[in-house]
Every structure is written in structure tokens, then in C-alpha cells.
């Protein structure tokens, strides 16, 4: 039973790491400001979700009221990130649009 819990926790932690790595690589590889925000804003959100899920599973090894409350607190972090991250991404995109930055398109590259 403990081995199963460990495997599940490790699986979610590694998945979170892969998403964070994808976010970092995406910020470097994407061609312009707007497309960079796609990996920056959202792969991180799912990365934190996966990692916290892994930690919660590990934390519930010894099931008791205390570990349960701790897990709920951890999920509160995810909840607030899910509220804050799209809002922050939206305001950054909006600032770019107001400043008049043109988005990169496929056509420009062929010229």
C-alpha cells in the first residue's frame, strides 16, 4: 500500500516537473511576446496543480485530521493560483495590446 502511494506521489511530482520544464523551455523557444505568455501562464498552472497533488498524496500517508487539514491548505494554494494566473496573464496581454505591439504571425516569417 505504501509503495502504491509512493508511486502515485512520484508520478505526479515528475509530471509537475515536466510541465514546469515545458513552461521554461517554451518561454525561450516561442517567437514573440504573446506566444511566450501561453507556456508561461498555463503550463505553470498545471505544473503547480500536479506537484501539489503529488505532495497531498504523499502527505496523506498517515491519514489523520491534521494531515487532512494540511492537504486542504495546500489545495487552497492551487485554488488561488487558478484565480490569479489567468488574471495576470490577461492584464499582461492587455498591456501589450495597449502599447501597440503587433503579434508575430506565420506570414511574416516567409518573407
Amino acid at each position: 500500500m505504501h509503495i502504491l502511494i509512493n508511486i502515485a506521489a512520484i508520478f505526479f511530482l515528475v509530471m509537475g516537473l515536466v510541465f514546469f520544464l515545458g513552461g521554461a523551455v517554451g518561454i525561450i523557444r516561442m517567437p514573440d511576446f504573446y506566444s511566450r505568455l501561453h507556456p508561461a501562464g498555463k503550463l505553470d498552472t498545471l505544473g503547480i496543480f500536479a506537484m501539489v497533488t503529488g505532495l497531498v498524496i504523499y502527505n496523506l500517508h498517515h491519514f489523520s485530521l491534521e494531515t487532512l487539514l494540511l492537504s486542504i491548505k495546500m489545495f487552497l494554494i492551487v485554488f488561488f493560483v487558478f484565480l490569479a494566473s489567468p488574471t495576470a496573464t490577461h492584464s499582461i496581454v492587455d498591456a501589450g495590446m495597449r502599447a501597440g505591439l503587433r503579434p508575430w504571425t506565420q506570414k511574416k516569417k516567409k518573407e
Partner: protein
Amino acid sequence: MNENRDEKNTGTVTTAGATFFSFFVTFIFMFATWIILSGKFDPLLLGLGIFSSALVAWFFHDLLFAGVSMKQTGVFVRFCRYMPWLVMEIIKANFHLLYLVFHPRMLQLINPHIIQFQTGLKSDIAITTLANAITLTPGTVTITATSEGRFRVHAIDRPSAESLPGAMRDRVAHVYGEKI
């Protein structure tokens, strides 16, 4: 969850019953947060929690859950049923974006462009929820959303642009009981 209840209702006359209901909801919300964050069940700490939650709820019941009535319990239930679907969509779309990011010929695969569409949603809260859902789903970022329900969305490639507005709009409209 609190964005769900944050209905704009300043124009209507609030009755005593409605005021009590929003006070009650705020109190429950505050006290649940107190219990989760304190994690202790001494009578003293619980009593202090009840006292301070009641105080905060008394002062701020018209701020957080203003104009909440019994009728909106259905909205809350439907919102809770909508959350798992949204999380599934986010996970699916994240794997797509992950594939794009690690693809060697990424620059040929992506095709960023801006799309505009009319959703027909009316209430502010439905538009906010849809805008947040679009931004959370990888491949699409909401640029502007007007109060008439017009959206401008930056999409990273063709498939993520084609999925809009589509099913997500229908789900959000269903949650808030709006006809399109």
C-alpha cells in the same frame, strides 16, 4: 467559488431576508476558512473564530456575497459540476501545448493569430468566467472581453482556435442559466 457568487445587484432593494442570507453565507465561508487555517478545536479558539467571523460577516456581508439569494444555490451546484470538466479540458490542452513546445519544428507548427467572436452572454459574471476559462485553457488567451459579450482571443495555433467558442461557451451559459 466566490467569483461565482459575486453577482452585481446594487440596483435592487435588499430585503431583511436577503441581507440575513448573505450574512449567513459570508459567516459560513469565513468560519470554514478559520477552521481550515487554524486546525485547532479548543473551545476558546473556536469561540474566538465564531466571534471574529461574525464580526467580519456583519461588517462585510454586502461586499463579498452581495445580493445572493436562495435561488442561486442552483448556480453554485452547476458551477461545482462544471469545475471537473474544466480541469479535464485544461489537462488535455496542456498536453497539446507541451507537445508543441518540445517539437523540433515548433515554428512551423504554431500559427498565432487573433480571432474575434460574439458569445451572446449577458451577465458580467458569465463573461468573466468564460474569459478566465479561455485563458486557463492553453493555446488561447483572452485579450479583451466587452460587456456585450464580444471576445478577442489570441490563439497559438489552428486547432485551439477552432475549438472556440463552442462547447465552453455552452457550458458557461448553462451554469448561469442563460439562453444563447
